C-alpha cells in the first residue's frame, strides 16, 4: 500500500529523517514507534504531503508518486488524523466533514446527501456518530471518530493516525481499537504513530521502530515483546517495572477528613473523601478520569476556593483547609499538575523563569531587598534543576514552549521536587512522555519516597499507579470505593471497582 524508500529530511542542522525505508502491507495495522523526536511524525507528514523530502521516494500501490501537498495524498487515498483535532466547534459533524470538499454547486450546499453518506459510513464502521450533532457537545472520543469519518468520506484507503490515544480515556481506547480492527476487516490499511508499547502490542500487525531519525527495527508484532521494543526505541536496556524496596512509612503527613468539593456549576465532584498519606509512602489513586481526581488534588494544593470545599485537610497535624496555594507551598506541599500546559508552565517564559514559579517572591529568586529578582540566584536554580533532572536542551534561556513534552515534564518535576517538599501531589506525571523519561520520572518519585517524602499519586495509567503505589485507593464518582494492595490486586479487580462495580 505505502512504501517509503530512503526518505531523508533535514531541518536546518537537524537530520529528522535519515534514509527511512519501510513498507506497509495492505489490510494491516502498522505501528510506528519511537521516542519523541525520533522522526516518526516527520516521516508520516512527508507521506501525507505536509513536508517535501530532501531525498528518497514514496510509493503508493507499488508506484512512485510525487506527493507535494495533502491534496495529492488525499487524491491517492491517503488520509491523516492529527493529534490535535482540526474541527470547527460550533458547527455540526456533517458541516465539519464536508469542509473543503463541499458537495453541491458553488451557490448551494447540499448537506442532506452528505449527511446520508456520513450516516452510511458511520454505520458501516459502527462509529455511532450523528451527522447533525454539534461538535462541541461531543466527547473527545466522539470527536476523534468525526476525524476518522473525515478521512473515510474522502475515500481514504490508508489512514495515518498520529498519537490517536493520547487524548482518550482507557475505555475510549478500547472502543477506538475495536473500530480500527473493524476498519482493517473492511480492507483499510492503518498506520498508527505512538510511543505506548502496550498499544503497539494490542493492536498492530507489524511495527517499525525509529530512533534518532533512522529505522532501527522492522518487526512482526507477534514475534516481539515490550522489552525488545523498548530496548530498540531507547537504544539501551529499559526497566519497564519499577524497582522499589518496601515502603518504610513514618508519621502521618497529610490527613483528609470528609472532604467534599462542589464545582462552579453546583455538581458534587468529590463526595466525602477521607484519606491519609504518611511520610515515606506512595499512595496511589486509580480511577477513570473525571471521577474527582482533578478536583481532589487541586483542593489539596489550595487551588479551589475554600467556599467550594467542605471537610478538613490537615498537614502534619495542622489544619490547612483555609490556607491559599502560596502558604501551602511554603509549608512544603509540592504539586505536579496534571495539565502541564494549562497549569504547570508559562510556555512563553524561559526555563529559568519557569523554575521559580511559586517561589519567585523569596530566596533564591529575589535578592536581599526582597523586591528585585536575583538573576544569578535564578540562573543557579535553573541550572541545578536542569542538571539534576536532565532537561534537554540544557539552556535556561530557552522558552519552555520549545521543549519536548518529556522535557517540559522533567522541568516541572524538577522545580517541585527541589523545593524540597514534605508532601508531593503528583498528577499524571508521565502523560505524553516518552519511555526513557518515564523510567527517569518513576525513579525520581521512588527516590523522593525513600527520602521520607509523602507522595499522593494520581494517574490514568493503571499500570503506573499499581507499579508505583504502596497503597492504592480506587475512586469512582467522587468517592473512594476501596483500598487495595497493588502487589496482589489484579487489574481486572481494580478495573471493576473503577467502573463502580463492587469487588466480589
Amino acid at each position: 500500500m505505502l512504501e517509503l524508500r530512503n526518505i531523508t529530511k533535514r531541518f536546518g542542522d537537524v537530520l529528522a529523517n535519515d534514509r527511512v525505508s519501510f513498507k506497509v502491507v495492505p489490510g494491516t495495522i502498522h505501528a510506528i514507534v519511537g521516542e519523541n523526536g525520533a522522526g516518526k511524525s516527520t516521516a508520516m507528514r512527508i507521506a501525507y504531503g505536509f513536508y517535501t523530502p530532501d531525498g528518497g521516494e514514496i510509493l503508493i500501490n507499488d508506484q512512485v508518486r510525487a506527493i507535494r501537498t495533502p491534496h495529492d495524498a488525499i487524491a491517492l487515498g491517503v488520509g491523516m488524523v492529527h493529534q490535535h483535532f482540526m474541527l470547527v466547534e460550533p458547527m455540526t459533524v456533517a458541516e465539519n466533514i464536508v469542509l473543503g470538499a463541499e458537495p453541491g454547486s458553488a451557490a448551494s450546499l447540499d448537506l442532506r446527501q452528505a449527511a446520508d453518506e456520513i450516516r452510511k459510513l458511520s454505520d458501516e464502521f459502527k462509529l455511532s456518530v450523528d451527522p447533525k450533532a454539534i461538535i462541541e457537545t461531543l466527547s473527545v472520543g466522539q470527536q476523534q471518530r468525526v476525524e476518522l469519518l473525515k478521512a473515510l468520506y474522502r475515500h481514504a484507503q490508508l489512514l495515518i493516525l498520529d498519537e490517536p490515544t493520547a487524548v482518550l480515556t482507557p475505555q475510549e481506547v478500547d472502543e477506538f481499537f475495536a473500530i480500527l480492527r473493524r476498519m482493517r476487516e473492511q480492507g483499510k490499511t492503518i498506520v498508527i504513530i505512538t510511543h505506548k508499547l502496550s498499544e503497539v502490542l494490542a493492536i498492530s500487525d507489524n511495527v517499525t521502530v525509529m530512533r534518532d531519525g533512522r529505522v532501527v527495527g522492522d518487526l512482526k508484532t507477534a514475534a516481539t515483546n515490550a522489552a525488545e521494543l523498548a530496548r530498540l526505541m531507547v537504544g539501551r536496556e529499559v526497566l519497564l517495572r519499577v524497582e522499589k524496596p518496601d515502603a518504610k512509612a513514618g508519621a502521618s503527613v497529610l490527613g483528609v477528613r470528609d472532604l467534599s468539593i462542589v464545582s462552579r456549576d453546583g455538581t458534587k465532584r468529590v463526595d466525602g473523601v477521607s484519606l491519609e498519606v504518611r511520610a515515606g509512602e506512595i499512595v496511589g489513586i486509580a480511577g477513570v478520569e473525571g471521577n474527582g481526581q482533578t478536583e481532589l488534588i487541586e483542593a489539596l494544593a489550595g487551588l479551589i476556593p475554600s467556599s467550594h470545599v467542605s471537610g478538613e485537610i490537615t498537614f502534619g497535624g495542622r489544619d490547612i483547609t483555609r490556607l491559599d496555594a502560596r502558604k501551602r507551598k511554603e509549608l512544603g506541599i509540592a504539586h505536579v499538575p496534571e495539565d502541564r500546559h494549562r497549569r504547570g508552565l508559562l510556555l512563553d517564559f524561559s526555563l529559568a523563569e519557569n523554575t521559580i514559579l511559586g517561589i519567585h517572591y523569596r530566596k533564591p529568586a529575589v535578592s536581599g531587598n526582597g523586591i528585585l529578582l536575583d538573576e544569578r540566584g535564578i540562573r543557579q536554580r535553573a541550572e541545578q534543576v536542569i542538571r539534576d533532572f536532565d532537561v534537554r536542551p540544557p539552556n535556561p534561556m530557552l522558552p519552555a514552549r520549545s521543549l519536548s513534552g518529556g522535557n517540559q515534564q522533567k522541568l516541572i518535576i524538577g522545580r517541585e521536587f527541589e523545593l524540597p517538599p514534605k508532601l508531593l501531589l503528583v498528577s499524571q506525571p508521565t502523560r505524553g512522555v516518552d519511555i526513557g523519561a518515564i523510567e527517569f520520572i518513576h525513579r525520581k518519585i521512588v527516590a523522593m519516597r525513600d527520602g521520607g517524602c509523602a507522595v499522593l499519586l494520581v494517574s490514568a495509567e493503571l499500570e503506573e499507579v499499581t507499579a508505583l503505589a504502596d497503597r492504592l485507593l480506587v475512586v469512582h464518582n467522587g468517592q473512594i470505593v476501596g483500598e487495595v494492595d497493588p502487589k496482589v490486586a489484579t487489574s481486572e479487580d481494580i478495573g471493576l471497582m473503577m467502573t463502580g462495580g463492587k469487588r466480589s
Partner: protein
Amino acid sequence: MHFDLRVRKISDQNQRPKTKDPGSKIVMKLLREILFPLIAVIAAFIVGGIIVLIIGDSPIQTYRLLIGSAFSWPDGIGYTLFYATPLIFTGLAVAVAFRCGLLNIGAEGQLYIGAFATAWVGIKLAGTSAWILLPLCCLVAIVGGAIWGGIPGLLKARFGSHEVINTIMLNFIAVALVSYFTQYHYKVPGDPILQTTTIGPTAHIARLGKFIPGLPERIPLNVAFILAIIACAFVYVLLWKTKWGYEIRATGANPSAAEYGGISIRKQIILAMAISGGLAGMVGINEVLGYRYRYYDGFSANYGFVGIAVALLGRNHPVGVFLAAILFAILLRGGIFVDAYTVHVSKDIVDMLQGIVIVFVAAEAAFRGPIKKFGLMRRAKV
C-alpha cells in the same frame, strides 16, 4: 596542571554551549523584534504613497514634508519630542495592562482625570513652595489616573466584568466629569474658552529650553519628557526585574499557571490597571504643569487611543513604545505641514497612515504565524 585546564574547558563548553557569544545573540534578538514592526511601517508608507499618488500629489514631496519637517532644529525636534511625550505615557500604560492580559481602552479617561486633578491641586494650593507643590502635583496626576484605571480593575477582579467595556464607559464619565467641573466651578468668569484658571507659578515645571542651548523656551518641550524616559526605564525594571513584574507577566501569560504558582490573579489585575492608569495620568504633568499651566478642556488629541497603537507597534516593550511614540509624533507634526503645503492631501493622511500601520501590525500575526510554526516544528517534532 596543563591537562587539568583542558578538561575544565571541555566540560565548560559542554555545560553551556550558549554563552559563546552573548553579544551577537542579543543583537539578533533585537533585530528579530524590530524587524516585523519595521516591515509594517514600511508597508504602510508604501500603501499610503500609492493613495497619495491616486489623490494627485507627489508621494515623495508629501513624505518629505511629513517626515522631513520633524528633523529641523530646534522646532522640528523640539515639537516632535513634545508630541511624543503623552504618547510614551499612554503607550506604556496600555503595554503594562497588556502584559497582564488586560486591554486598557481607558487611558483617555485616565489621562483626563490625571490632568484635571493636577490642575486642581495647582490652583487650590497656588503659592505653596515649589518643593512641596511640584511633587504633590505630579503625584496627584499619577494617583488620579491610577484610581480611574483601578476602578475597572477592581470591577473585573471582584465581579468579572470585562475591562474593555468598563474602561470605555469610564472614558465618557471622565470626560463629562472634568468638563462639568471646568465649566461650573473652575472657569475664569466670562472666558469663552472652556478652561480653568491658571495654576500657581510654583507648580510649573521647567521647559527644556532652559537647560539646552539653542532650544528656545517658547517650544513647550518640558521636563515631562525626561519623566517619560524615566517611566520607560521604570516599566522595564518593574516588569522584568522585580517579583511584582514577574507576577504581572505570569498572570498575563497564563492565569491558570500563575494561580498555581500562588499568585493572586485578582490582585494582579487591580495592580496592573492602577499602574496603567497612573502612567496615563502622567500625561497631565506634560499638559498642565509643563505646557498650558491650566486645565484646558478637551486637550487630548486622542492620546489614550493612539497609545493603543503605540503599544501595539512597540510590542508592549518600553523601548518599542518609546520608538513608536516618536514615530507617531513625527507623523502628528508632519501632518500640519502636509496640510499646509500640498495641493490635495490633507493632514488626515496621518490618521490614514496610523490606521494602515495598525492593520499591518495586526496582520503580522498572519505572516509571522507560519514562520513561527515552522520554527516550532523544527524543534519539537523532528
